């Protein structure tokens, strides 16, 4: 029961994040609620894979983004907007912000490090977080583009 609540809480928070960050990109009003819904389902997929399936964050993000892409195509057909309108804002809660922050933080710490050992330590943290951050973003976009390009005809004709 607790696990189900945690998954739902994760989805709710992702929906709020997806809607809020999505609004910055000015999607059509009717599309905004779908951004939140898709963000929730995509993030819940990733949450389940990481926390219940023990999957690494990179393939888990790819799978979450694949779900986002599929749902975006369904919604795009319904609302007659490009799938990117839903898919890109819905991906934003999955952007590995903390990894990006730790990369920059470790880089700055490496700049101010006093000795070789300390410098190597911070450089290691910078590189390890940076690699994960980059691959999560690439995985997310690849996962999103697979359904968009499989259903290319729908993706590029929904605004008819």
């Amino acid at each position: 029961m607790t696990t189900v609540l945690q998954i739902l809480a994760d989805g709710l928070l992702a929906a709020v994040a997806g809607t809020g960050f999505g609004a910055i990109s000015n999607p059509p009003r009717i599309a905004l609620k779908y951004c939140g819904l898709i963000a929730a389902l995509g993030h819940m997929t990733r949450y389940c894979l990481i926390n219940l399936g023990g999957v690494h964050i990179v393939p888990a993000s790819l799978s979450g983004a694949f779900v986002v892409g599929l749902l975006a195509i369904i919604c795009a057909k319904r609302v007659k907007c490009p799938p990117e309108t839903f898919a890109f804002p819905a991906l934003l809660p999955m952007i590995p912000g903390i990894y990006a922050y730790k990369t920059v933080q470790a880089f700055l710490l490496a700049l101010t490090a006093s000795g070789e050992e300390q410098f190597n330590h911070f450089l290691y943290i910078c590189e390890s977080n940076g690699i994960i951050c980059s691959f999560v973003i690439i995985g997310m976009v690849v996962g999103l583009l697979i359904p968009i390009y499989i259903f290319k005809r729908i993706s590029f004709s929904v605004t008819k």
Partner: protein
Amino acid sequence: MTTMTAMNNLSVVQSDLGRDCAFFAEYASNMLGCGATCSRIQKNIRRMASATGYSVELTILPAHCIVTLSDADGLSYSHSSTIADLPNDYALNTRLSNLSWRVAENKVSLKEAETEFPHLLKGPRYSRLTLLLLVAAANAAFCRIFGGDIMATGIVAIATLIGFSFKILLSAQHVNYMAVTVASAFAAAVVGTAGYVFPGITSTEDVALATSVLFLIPGIPYINSVNDLLTDHYLCAFSRFVKATIITACITVGLTAAFLLMKISFFDL
């Protein structure tokens, strides 16, 4: 006389071609400015061009786009346009994509589309207050996702309200986007350090500080960049990536300035 008429006809054709080419260039420039992917822009332009008997080539450079339009007689015309400086706008992307379909299906002529185009650029946007509240709630939710406690979530919500207000106000004054990002990150991070300045109010002060500036991370440009990279638009992918990286670097500058002001050492983090 015949030569004069032929020359006049030629100049009319050339002027039509020039006008249509300028329209396609403006269309591409606005689509690029509002955050559309290169593959969508290319498809939209080709769709309109083939419906009106033209063939079109689009060259996308970091700050400009060049459209070369050729008619059935082999006459061609090129027009270069500066990429419009617009915020991401999916509603505009939708309206312009819809226009391309209406031209392709002969529901409107190219001339009518050219007349309608400037009106389509002036669509509604969310009010500043709505945007402010939605972004503050989104960033607070982000903090919670990353494991922040209730107090950290509150700190992030306030930090985002202040930081995003700076962004809205400075952007309205047409301040350079780098200065806007540095100032907004600085304002948000100063509030985000509350957990360090007042020890004990939250047990996740590091999450609060890290999340306080995340609303400024240019997520859509990063995603667009990888999208363009995977669809063979390497130059545009690189230029979008560089711009997004510059914004990220500006966030770091603002964050570092806040650390210095609040006398927080990187080693405290």
